[in-house]
């Protein structure tokens, strides 16, 4: 293409140059991605900016007053009900991501180091329940943990308990169990990917140099897979903090999370600006928590070496 431009007579130079520019790699690449990019800009970035703008406004019945105010943030951060919901959501999402990563790591390790030829079959087996409807998975936990549910009736049938326990459903533990199950598969993939990248000769070198199996795992494999642990933790933590279905179905009164309060502001309570401020606050705090998690895991990784 450039050759054509160089050989062109001076008069047609500009057009040829423009063609060369149009056919250059960056321009073509950008042109190709622009529809998708625009879609994301209009339906993701713009909406989030609109939410941020709303969080600084006030609502009077059906009209929005666009004078700048921080009142919504004061309410979101100091009203006991929202403060408690925020803390609980953060606690639940942190606990869930901790357990998901803890439970997922051995599986990812098993597939990566002992999976042999069947690695992709294992990964497929483990991810398939994840592809079923999230709503249905939460619903099945309601069936399991309910007062007249599978677990209670099963335990009673086995003679372990005499009457149905009410402690199983409608509390934050039920939310944690359900979310840990729902996100299990999501944590395995990033850990698996980073374990695949661990240079096996390094593990052998550590063993040859006299490290026991446990030591070589703790000092070589585990630190080298830290990036996978980080992304697994974040991929679970950020979405679960804003979970709506699980607290609504199995959380009861003690398991309500911030997303339920946000939804109420856009529904019954009809206070969009407060709902917007709650959304922004949640995102900011979970980002801080995610950042802290990254720093802590990195520090642990350095210590292990």
């Amino acid at each position, binding site marked *: 293409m450039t050759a054509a431009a160089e050989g062109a007579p001076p008069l047609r130079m500009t057009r040829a140059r423009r063609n060369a520019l149009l056919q250059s790699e960056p321009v073509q690449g950008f042109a190709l*991605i622009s529809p*998708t990019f625009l879609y994301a800009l209009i339906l993701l970035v713009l909406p*989030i900016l609109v939410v941020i703008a709303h969080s600084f406004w006030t609502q009077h019945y059906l009209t929005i007053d666009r004078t700048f105010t921080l009142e919504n943030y004061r309410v979101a951060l100091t009203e006991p009900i929202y403060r408690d919901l925020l803390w609980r959501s953060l606690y639940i999402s942190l606990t869930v991501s901790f357990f998901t990563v803890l439970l997922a790591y051995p599986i990812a390790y098993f*597939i990566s180091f002992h999976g042999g030829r069947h690695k992709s079959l294992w990964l497929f087996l483990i991810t398939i329940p994840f592809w079923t409807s*999230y709503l*249905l998975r939460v619903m099945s936990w309601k069936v399991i943990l309910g007062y007249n549910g599978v677990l209670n009736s099963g335990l009673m049938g086995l003679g372990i308990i005499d009457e149905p326990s009410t402690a199983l459903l409608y509390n934050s533990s039920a939310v944690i169990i359900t979310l840990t*199950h729902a996100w299990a598969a999501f944590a395995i993939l990033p850990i698996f990917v980073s374990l695949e990248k661990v240079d096996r000769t390094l593990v052998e070198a550590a063993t040859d140099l006299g490290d026991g199996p446990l030591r070589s795992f703790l000092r070589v494999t585990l630190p080298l897979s830290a990036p996978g642990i980080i992304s697994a933790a974040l991929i679970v933590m950020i979405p679960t903090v804003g979970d709506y279905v699980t607290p609504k179905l199995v959380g009861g009164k003690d398991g309500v999370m911030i997303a339920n309060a946000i939804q109420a502001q856009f529904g019954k309570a009809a206070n969009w600006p407060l709902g917007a401020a709650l959304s922004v606050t949640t995102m900011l705090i979970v980002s801080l928590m995610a950042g802290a998690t990254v720093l802590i895991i990195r520090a642990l990784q350095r210590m292990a070496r």
Partner: protein
Amino acid sequence: MTARSRFLPGGWLSAYAFLYIVFLYLPVIFLPIFSINTAPTPKFPLTGFTLQWYEDLPRTPALLDAAWNSLIVGVSASVLATVLGILAARSITRYRYPGRRAINGLIMAPLVLPEVIVAISMLLVMLQLGLSLSLFTVVLGHVLVCIPYSMTVLTSGFEGFDRSLEEASADLGESAFGTFRRVTLPMVAPAIISSLLVCFTISLDEFIIAFFLTGTEATLPIYIWGQLRFASKLPGVLALGTLLLVASFLLMTIAEILRRRAARRTQNEGGLYA
């Protein structure tokens, strides 16, 4: 090597992997079990086999409407998301340009954002623009959340795609369209079908975004949500849920087989000519 297998020996790990699979599948399996049980409440011991709950399903007009709506939304969202996914995946795997990673990150972002916040932001904008909520707004939302999955499937199909094949075709006198139709398309077709199936499954199962962005029309998950309030409707919901589980399972299995075939095809071709 031996030391590695001595620590966390394969035996212990295999046992753990087995238990883990049970933990993943067991809760889901209760849905089909209780959907063919005669008792209206899901508890042990099982009382007897029946298909009554399934037979009732086609006699519920609201359910049929919801199924039709889900089909419309699923097909529209998967086609749109796959078209946008093809453009983006092709651009990412084929070209190098500044800002490529940032744009990719933005397109993939819905995957890791809390769905409620994505849904509410879109709701605000749509209400501000005066769009009335309908299945169309649900499609718009589903396309956004489907694109990242479509991208993942398509990128793995497009990667390793040997550009010299296209160049050879062009050198041998094929037009750009001819090259696309006779060289590019056959190689990436399995990945594209796989992306369509994955997106359809996601749209079929997606609840939150549909819940916020729909007007009066329900999709299947919204219909299920509405039924959950009534304890007496539970067996029907379990039966419907089982059908959805089976549909998702089949669609995803076909999608995975196709995705692997696509990845293998591009790699083999690349290997042959490299």
